[in-house]
């Protein structure tokens, strides 16, 4: 009798597998190692599978997938396997797949923050480790590298004089989307200084609307817009990082007081209640509903405002007015976004180069820029979208933001990177006293700097 029950269990399991297997359109009986075996070498003419890794960011993801399909039909025998991972997992997956030699073309997200001489023994960022380990291909002499402007190659692709990555575009994050229609209905102008922003917010709220929304659940969206404020207060961001390291500037310096006070006002008075539950993308949907005046986040959200279910109102994008001097609020702070790099040990190096070359073709690249809303890194391309028009007056003033320079020294406490202050105030964290937080931030940083000496 008992044996019968076990038989029934086994039979039941088998049945379930069979039933599930029925849904599986590829037949799915391959139980062992069918997929993704590393190191499949392919001679010319033989079928090649090119393994591409990108991070998830619509509409870029869809565009790259379409481009890959096009590349397949242009190159018979080539199959492109595009793997998409969340931005948070990208570093992990890059590390594991490169170590396993299981990828050919990689999305280098954040080719920044090289360790400077004054930083002592700081841990180098992931990409630097990868280059030191010889895992990224030196592409200095590839002809298509010249399609990209020299600034982008130098600032987001070169290490020790060699080029390892071509960057696909700049993005701006130190600013905010502005709902022009809402401001007009309230009867106020787009703010150009901090005090104007404060009074506009009051007016907007008095009229029964919300001033700002954001994706608090994901953490970083809370402070990403305020990189613009930090930039407005301290235009030389690279210099600021160095000064913080050398002690010429401290987080609790009187010159910093505005920074802490204003991020507190921003976090507590300007952002609407409930943003802690919104993911980054969700905040854009929320904003599109129309009753919020500003959305301080990266300009890369623009395509989501333009698309289906997007905004029905007229909007623009302006630098975060963090300073009381309007002239300081003209800089657009941002970063270099995704770049392509090629795995040095790839068995398909030639195909990988062809893939990046096809992408780098000016016409293809123009299409990419138009779709994604990146600020082009090829001189021939233009950003001819609504966002492009909004950004045009500031484009001359593009600057790389604080987080692209900052490297956390070993031993620094969790409050040492004061540029994230906005996400540390109530309701996003436990701080309520701006001055106390400034003191704590400096203590957390100082503890690590003392160890460097």
């Amino acid at each position: 009798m008992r044996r019968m029950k076990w038989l029934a269990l086994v039979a039941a399991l088998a049945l379930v597998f069979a039933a599930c297997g029925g849904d599986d359109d590829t037949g799915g009986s391959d139980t062992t190692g069918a997929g993704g075996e590393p190191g499949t070498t392919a001679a010319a003419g033989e079928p090649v599978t090119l393994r591409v890794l990108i991070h998830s960011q619509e509409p870029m993801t869809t565009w790259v997938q379409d481009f890959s399909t096009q590349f397949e039909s242009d190159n018979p025998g080539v199959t492109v396997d595009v793997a998409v991972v969340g931005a948070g997992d990208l570093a992990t997956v890059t590390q594991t797949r490169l170590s396993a030699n299981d990828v050919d073309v990689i999305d280098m997200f954040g080719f920044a923050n090289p360790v400077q001489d004054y930083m002592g023994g700081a841990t180098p960022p992931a990409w630097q480790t990868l280059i030191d380990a010889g895992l990224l291909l030196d592409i200095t002499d590839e002809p298509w590298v010249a399609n990209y402007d020299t600034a982008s190659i130098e600032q987001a692709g070169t290490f020790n004089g060699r080029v390892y990555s071509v960057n696909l575009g700049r993005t701006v994050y130190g600013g905010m989307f502005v709902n022009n229609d809402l401001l007009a209905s309230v009867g106020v102008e787009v703010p150009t200084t901090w005090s104007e922003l404060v009074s506009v917010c009051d007016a907007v709220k008095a009229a029964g609307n919300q001033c700002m929304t954001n994706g608090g659940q994901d953490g970083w969206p809370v402070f990403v817009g305020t990189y613009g404020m930090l930039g407005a207060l301290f235009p030389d961001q690279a210099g600021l990082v160095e000064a913080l390291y050398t002690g010429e500037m401290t987080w609790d310096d009187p010159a910093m007081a505005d920074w802490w006070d204003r991020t507190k006002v921003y976090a507590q008075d300007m952002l609407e209640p409930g943003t802690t539950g919104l993911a980054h993308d969700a905040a854009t949907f929320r904003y599109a509903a129309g009753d919020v005046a500003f959305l301080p986040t990266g300009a890369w959200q623009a395509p989501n405002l333009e698309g289906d279910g997007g905004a029905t109102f007229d909007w623009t994008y302006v630098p975060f007015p963090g300073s009381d001097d309007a002239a300081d609020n003209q800089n657009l702070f941002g970063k270099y976004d995704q770049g392509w790099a090629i795995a040095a040990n790839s068995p398909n190096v030639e195909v990988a180069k062809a893939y990046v070359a096809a992408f780098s073709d000016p016409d293809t690249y123009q299409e990419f820029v138009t779709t994604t809303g990146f600020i082009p890194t090829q001189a021939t391309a233009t950003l001819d979208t609504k966002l492009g028009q909004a950004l045009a007056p500031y484009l001359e003033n593009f600057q790389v933001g604080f987080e692209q320079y900052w490297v956390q020294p070993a031993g620094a406490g969790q409050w040492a990177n004061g540029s994230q202050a906005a996400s540390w105030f109530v309701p996003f964290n436990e701080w309520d006293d701006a001055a106390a937080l400034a003191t704590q931030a400096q203590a957390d940083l100082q503890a690590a700097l003392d160890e460097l000496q």
Partner: protein
Amino acid sequence: MTIPRDDAPEMIVPALDAEPPVVERVGKGFPWGKVISYVVLSLFALLYLAPLFMLVNASFKPLSEFFRDPIGLASGINFDNYTKAWELANFPRYLLNSAIYTAIATAVFVFTTLFVAFPISRGIIKGGGAILTLYVVALFLPPALIPQFQLILNLGLYNTRVGYIMLFLVNAIGMIIVVNYIKSIPKELDESAAVDGCGYFRFVWSIVLPLIRPAIATVTVLHAIGIWNELILPTIYLTNSDLYPITRGLIVFQGQYGSDWPALASAVLMLMLPMLVLFMFLQRYIIGGLTSGAVKG
């Protein structure tokens, strides 16, 4: 550090097939006890039903309606979100993968465990005590994520089903449960089997195994639940989406469409349905298994 092998905790009990008699704790008169029990249980049940209901409700809402009013009743039953979620991700495959990993790894684990546990429990091999000590200490080892990764990489098993399954072939707590249970089987049995000329393998396989079935059922279920729920290891070891188990598939889906709560809720419900059916079907075995080997001394 040495731990005598009898130090391992006792957690043993015979089979629990039929529902044993229920304790009647309430006296005569109005059954206050029962009423209070129902109230407490129902309040608690609310904590389990409400999130479920919220999920179903959200899945029927268009996105814009959800953002306007997340908890109001859906204005109508509409399956658009289900179609959308179904098209966006390959959930049947993820489910199948999870089933394959769970079934194979558990089967291998149980088979190998039996032959490690028996000689240790019986004390018929030299060094058995030391081996058991090793298992007891290992109960407390943190998962050795990093060297394990290097190991699988060097074996060339990264991003393969075999490599992933390998990670789940051992389980110290399961081993200890089995070792302890075997002690409850009289040693006279060994003697009479040996007298009858029964070989070692046949004895363990066809005589001991049926007798320790409750313990085997327990470790099977505990181990299977662990594999079914694993989230970190697929992140590290599986990059090919064809190989994802549901945990990974779902979290990638969330990463990509995370703000689309209605679609996400639909995806979750579609995944839950086969799991719940499977659970209902196997409930007796899962619950019996979870409990029977773990509870008697």
